[in-house]
């Protein structure tokens, strides 16, 4: 019984931390740019693919094993560096200030393009990079064994969340971003370069998506179609927590992660729709999510 609860909690926490890293980028981009980015899932998949490519190269160069984490970070960074100018500067910039739903549709189109770009670059075969997962050995909890790498994901998620929170609230550039979130026009009048802030925010969001992808790559087989489920799962998280809220993303990820883990162990039939169910339930009772303040209505 205790074991079972522990399993559910640990599985849930691992799943939630993965989900949180994806959702953090999504919610941050929405907060700053007011774009609900469907292509976020596509960037996630690119991160996974680039890690699956780079890590074998890294090993073939005969580098020390422990530095493989570095290779994974570099691959995530590379994806963000390539994708940000194309998406933000090239396409999304044309649609700022337009209807939110129209922009969602544009990102849906970008998502479709990214799906096929993955196929064109990496083909239809599955890629495997399980080596980094063996790096940290296994840990024992009572009668349970957990892979150290999986638990380290929880640490990574906490680090990402705290780091972003710290930058936003405790540094000058973070406060500028908060000002832009609050009112882009007035911030612009005060001399803030809005375009730069948007570009930086999109870069951070894309990097977080790619990061989640590259650290998940060792856990899964990287193949066509890994992005499609991520999109709705991360949507569910940010909807539950409130769009644009970091604490909301934490709670949202935990709710979905735990609910899913509980379902996997107790009610496997419900595994697929439990998160949609949570999302629908939250929208019905608290449509603006858990952490969304009151907003002024335009008359």
């Amino acid at each position, binding site marked *: 019984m205790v074991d079972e609860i522990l399993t559910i909690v640990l599985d849930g926490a691992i799943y939630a931390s993965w989900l949180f890293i994806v959702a953090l980028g999504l919610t941050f981009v929405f907060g700053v740019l007011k774009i609900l980015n469907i292509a976020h899932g596509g960037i996630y998949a690119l991160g996974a693919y680039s890690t699956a490519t780079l890590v074998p190269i890294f090993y073939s160069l005969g580098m020390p094993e422990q530095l493989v984490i570095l290779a994974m970070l570099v691959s995530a960074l590379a994806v963000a560096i390539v994708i940000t100018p194309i998406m933000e500067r090239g396409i999304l910039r044309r649609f700022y200030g337009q209807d*939110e*739903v129209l922009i969602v549709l544009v990102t849906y*189109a970008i998502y479709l393009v990214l799906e*096929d770009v993955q196929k*064109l670059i990496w083909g239809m075969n599955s890629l495997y990079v399980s080596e980094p997962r063996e790096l940290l050995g296994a840990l024992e909890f009572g009668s349970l064994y957990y892979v150290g790498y999986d638990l380290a994901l929880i640490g990574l998620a906490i680090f990402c969340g705290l780091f972003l929170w710290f930058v936003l609230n405790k540094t000058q550039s973070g406060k500028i971003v908060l000002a832009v979130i609050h009112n882009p026009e007035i911030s612009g009048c005060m001399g803030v370069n809005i375009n730069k802030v948007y570009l930086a925010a999109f870069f951070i969001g894309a990097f977080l998506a790619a990061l989640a992808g590259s650290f998940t790559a060792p856990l899964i087989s990287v193949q066509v179609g890994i992005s499609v489920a991520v999109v709705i799962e991360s949507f569910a998280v940010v909807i539950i927590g409130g*769009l644009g809220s970091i604490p909301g993303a934490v709670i949202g990820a935990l709710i979905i992660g735990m609910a899913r883990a509980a379902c996997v162990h107790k009610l496997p039939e419900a595994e697929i729709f439990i998160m*949609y169910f949570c999302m629908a339930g939250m929208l019905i009772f608290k*449509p*603006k999510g858990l952490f969304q303040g009151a907003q002024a209505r335009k*008359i």
Partner: protein
Amino acid sequence: MTEKLYNNLLFQSIFLMSFLILVGLLIPNWLVFVITKAIAYGLVGLGIITLMRGGLVSFGQGFVFGIGGYTAGLLGTQAGLTDAMLLLFVSFLFTGLVGLIIAPLLARYRDIFFAMLSLAFSMVLYGILIKIDAIGGSDGFVLPESTYFGIKPSSEYADYVLYVVAIIMTGFISILLRYYYDSTPGLIALAVRENELRVEYLGSSAFNVAVLNFTIAAGLGGMGGALNGIALGHIDPEFTYWTTSGEFVFISILAGYLSVPAVFLAALLLELVRSFSGRYFPDTWQLILGLFLILSIIFIPSGIGSFFKQFFDRLKKSK
């Protein structure tokens, strides 16, 4: 004046319908099939532009599309009902009823929240459908061949007969919708789109407008789903998936909310792009579709319908 305009509309529509029915005899069978599918998608798109007139966009029309498809499919396999016209009509009514039941829940929301809640509904349905093995789970199931007034057309004409039925039913629905758009409640929707609060101060209910429009959109989506299922001869949970819903939103954005025929033109464009790129570039059809979406949003932001409207406005002026 208005009387004359309406007569005109009826005449134009019947002319267009007869023209399309005759053209159907001349064009190859695959194109007949593509147009029938476009009509199915166009019906759902028509539902979304009905909502768009009131300022709402649903990102979950896969929900009603799926319900319509499964209604037709289950009536066909379980109850032995194979008359295509009856199936389309029953799906329209039943899905409209479902729409009416959930509409009060959805009608409280606006903008992205409306889009997301409708998306959540469609995904819950998707999650349920792939788990019900009795109706095929994620594989779906095959529909029995359709009949028309008790007659089963030979297989070479089956597509054409369905095409004719689809054109006639959709044609009359489009006429009715045009009347609705120009009626008082239809025009109030446009006012809600402009400024909801002022409409409420003037004594109309934005909530009622949203409920009515969502019910209509649901019925249309259900009929589209039934038509798509009958045309394909197969139904699966993919009908309700969010990527399907995304295509419906695209159709309505490409068409714009000004014109009814533009929706079917947009749906046909989408189907043609999809079938051509599917045939010639089987591995990259999503890429082409995506680029097509982006380019058309960049270059025709207010939709094909805006061209139609400009054209007819100019025509009226020159008279």
